[in-house]
């Protein structure tokens, strides 16, 4: 099993790194040996998890072991270094679902603390750590879940490929993620002064350069997550560019594939900025450099700029795949072509191109010079234009359709509704004047939960329900699916709508305690949060139960046209018996005689 071997190798690596740094004269008890030890742990973990067995042996003239397959290892392959994109997709999906629930549990914990003002169930430091843990784990889910799960499972099938371009790098990008969780949870388990990290997920220095081992853990975890994201993006880009089936021209690419493709540009290029920013913080901590010492020319604003150059594009890394799933599902259940297919792709590219020009709108109150605020406000307002294209595309698709309100469709429609609120409230943040009041308040909390949870996580669930029959070969319980939807949807509105009011009326974010006047609304929010949290129990029951004993699913239960629905559920290894030939557009519902793809070209036809 890759997990056990990985941890074993990792621990050995850590000890080796620790010993090495001590023997090189690094002071014992400082953070440097831990940082160096972690680098060795990470290398050891990857080697143990499968890089050595399936990859590195050949560098040393040894025979590589063959990667596990369904025939050779059965279900155990899900716990191993499999290079099959479908296995990796499921690994991503399950891992990040678990991280999502874990991060949700952390949210429950701090909502319990916030139920009443003056409560001291969590100490302020514990509160900050719990809140920050929720933040960074959810960021990990938001960045990786859709791209990792469906970008891996669905995208290669959609373009008619047998696998990703670099299957081993693909496995590597998955096996890079467990250390992130080890570190984050490890920081929560530390004791005394080393305990936790209390700087949110943004890790602004100088707060993040204050001593405390837990903070170092956080920084290393975030850097590791970035690495995974970069490798995944690289693989997706090359796969889409190089491995499309014959006839799969750019104009016939399913919209979901377009979504992960455009997103991957952002991950590939901008993740390195946050990596560099965090690297600077680590250097300031362990090597005594002075990046964030104001008297040396550095300072907090330097970090904020570098950080947001990544982290604003990162929100589009989160939301574009969400939009893409929504646009993928709407035509299927409206039985109409995707409205303005080319415009929607243009919208994606527009967002990608503009996403790098808006970062400083996170810094309107930071004391940066005025001449910077105005252009960034303008850029931010204008990014609503490509987003508007996505909206018209969605609305045009359902207009006059034949709407079948199955569970995936309900979630997809909820994305439109939620992102509408998320997007409109964003305008208030983009405006400098109102942002002076709204910045760093619960308004912002409400806004980004409406966009990322309401937009992306709802789309993630839409995707889970949509592709569940394809992934597992079994059908989920539709009634429970609908119950989950309405429970989650209403719970979500109840939690996050009042936050807008809270924010404008004086509740700032990331606080362990608040003034008594806001007690009533906070009580409501907390109670609704527990309700929202409970809705996932329905989901877990439904998914686990259906996976084990659900009815056999048809190959194409939704009547969809894209390639993944034209093959077996679950797909065979290498997906296709023969590489398909693509002959038409994927969303030509209602178009006479249009065929998206021919799966097994007749032998006679070739003659």
């Amino acid at each position: 099993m890759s997990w056990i071997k990985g941890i074993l190798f990792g621990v050995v690596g850590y000890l080796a790194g620790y010993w090495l740094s001590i023997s090189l004269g690094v002071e014992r008890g400082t953070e440097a040996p831990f940082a160096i030890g972690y680098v060795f742990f990470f290398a050891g973990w990857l080697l143990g998890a499968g890089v050595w067995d399936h990859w590195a042996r050949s560098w040393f003239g040894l025979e590589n072991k063959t990667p596990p397959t369904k025939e050779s290892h059965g279900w155990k392959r899900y716990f191993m270094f499999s290079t099959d994109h479908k296995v990796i997709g499921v690994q991503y999906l399950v891992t990040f679902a678990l991280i999502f629930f874990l991060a949700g549990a952390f949210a429950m914990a701090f909502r319990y603390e916030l139920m009443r003002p003056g409560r001291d169930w969590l100490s302020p430091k514990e509160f900050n750590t719990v809140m920050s843990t929720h933040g960074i784990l959810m960021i990990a889910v938001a960045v990786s879940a859709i791209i990792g799960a469906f970008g891996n499972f669905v995208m290669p099938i959609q373009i008619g490929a047998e696998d990703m371009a670099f299957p081993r790098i693909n496995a590597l990008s998955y096996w890079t993620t467990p250390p992130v969780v080890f570190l984050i949870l490890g920081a929560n388990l530390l004791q005394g002064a080393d305990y936790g990290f209390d700087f949110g997920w943004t890790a602004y220095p100088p707060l993040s350069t204050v001593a405390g081992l837990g903070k170092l853990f956080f920084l290393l975890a975030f850097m590791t997550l970035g690495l995974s994201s970069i490798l995944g993006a690289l693989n997706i880009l090359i796969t889409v560019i190089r491995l499309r089936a014959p006839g799969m021209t750019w104009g016939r690419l399913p919209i979901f594939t377009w979504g992960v493709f455009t997103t991957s540009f952002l991950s590939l290029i901008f993740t390195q900025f946050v990596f560099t920013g965090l690297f600077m913080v680590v250097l300031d901590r362990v090597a005594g450099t002075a990046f964030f010492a104001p008297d040396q020319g550095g300072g907090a604003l330097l970090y904020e700029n570098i950080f947001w150059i990544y982290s604003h594009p990162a929100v589009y890394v989160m939301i574009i795949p969400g939009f893409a799933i929504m646009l993928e599902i709407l035509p299927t259940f409206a039985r109409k072509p995707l409205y303005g297919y080319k415009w929607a792709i243009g919208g994606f590219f527009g967002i990608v191109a503009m996403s790098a020009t808006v970062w400083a709108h996170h810094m309107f109150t930071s004391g940066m010079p005025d001449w910077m605020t105005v252009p960034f406000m303008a850029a931010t307002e204008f990014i609503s234009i490509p987003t508007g294209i996505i909206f018209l595309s969605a609305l045009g698709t359902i207009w006059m359709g034949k709407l079948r309100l199955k569970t995936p469709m309900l979630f997809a429609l909820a994305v439109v509704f939620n992102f509408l609120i998320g997007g409109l409230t964003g305008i208030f943040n983009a405006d400098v004047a109102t942002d002076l009041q709204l910045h760093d308040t619960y308004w912002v909390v409400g806004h980004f939960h409406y966009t990322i949870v309401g937009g992306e996580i709802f789309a993630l669930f839409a995707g889970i329900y949509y592709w569940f029959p394809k992934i597992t070969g079994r059908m989920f319980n539709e009634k429970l699916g609908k119950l989950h939807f309405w429970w989650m949807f209403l719970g979500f509105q109840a939690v996050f709508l009042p936050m807008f009011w809270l924010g404008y009326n004086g509740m700032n974010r990331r606080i362990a305690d608040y003034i008594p006047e806001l007690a009533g609304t906070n009580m409501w929010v907390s109670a609704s949060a527990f309700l929202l949290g409970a809705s996932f129990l329905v989901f877990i029951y439904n998914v686990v139960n259906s996976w084990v004993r659900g009815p056999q699913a048809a190959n194409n239960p939704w009547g969809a046209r894209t390639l993944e629905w034209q093959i077996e559920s679950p797909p065979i290894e290498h997906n296709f018996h023969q590489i398909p030939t693509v002959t038409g557009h994927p969303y030509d519902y209602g178009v006479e005689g249009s065929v998206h793809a021919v799966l097994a070209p007749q032998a006679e036809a070739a003659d």
Partner: protein
Amino acid sequence: MSTLAHDSKYQLVTRRLGLWLFILSESMIFIALLFTRFLMQGVYRPEELNQTLGLGITTILLISSFTANRAEVRIAQGDRTGFLRNLAITIILGLVFLVVVVAVEWPEALHFAPPSTGYGTLFFAITGMHAFHVLTGLIILIIIFFQGKRGQYSPEDHWGAESGVVYWHFVDVVWIFVYPILYLFGP
């Protein structure tokens, strides 16, 4: 099942593109760090900085790129001995570069620009990040060397060697930017 994706020539281009995207991504780290240099210190540089030593190690790295290129051409030609000879020179030059940076350059810089100063911060962070890339490049080249010794590469199929060499050139390109920006630019 035989498809275009399995065609070795097609696959080679796929891999090349992959490597280029990786290089694009990696260069963002250095772009961020080098921009930070201007943001933090403008073009300030301490008087004591040893520009001649910088010129020396730049030359070493440039020569190593030259020999790396020769190694690649040799293996494409099928000349294994020439390939290994050039690769060995490249590795030795790379090691010399690394040793000079870590054992000569850094202790010297510690005196006039310790990491607790603005310039020292940038100097150590950027040259350190570069040295880390040199180290990985060296490890890759050493692995390639021994693989080549075992007879692994042929004129038709030497992607392993090519990728290592291209990465090595990338390390050189980074230094082409680092050297003037850290050592030469001045008020």
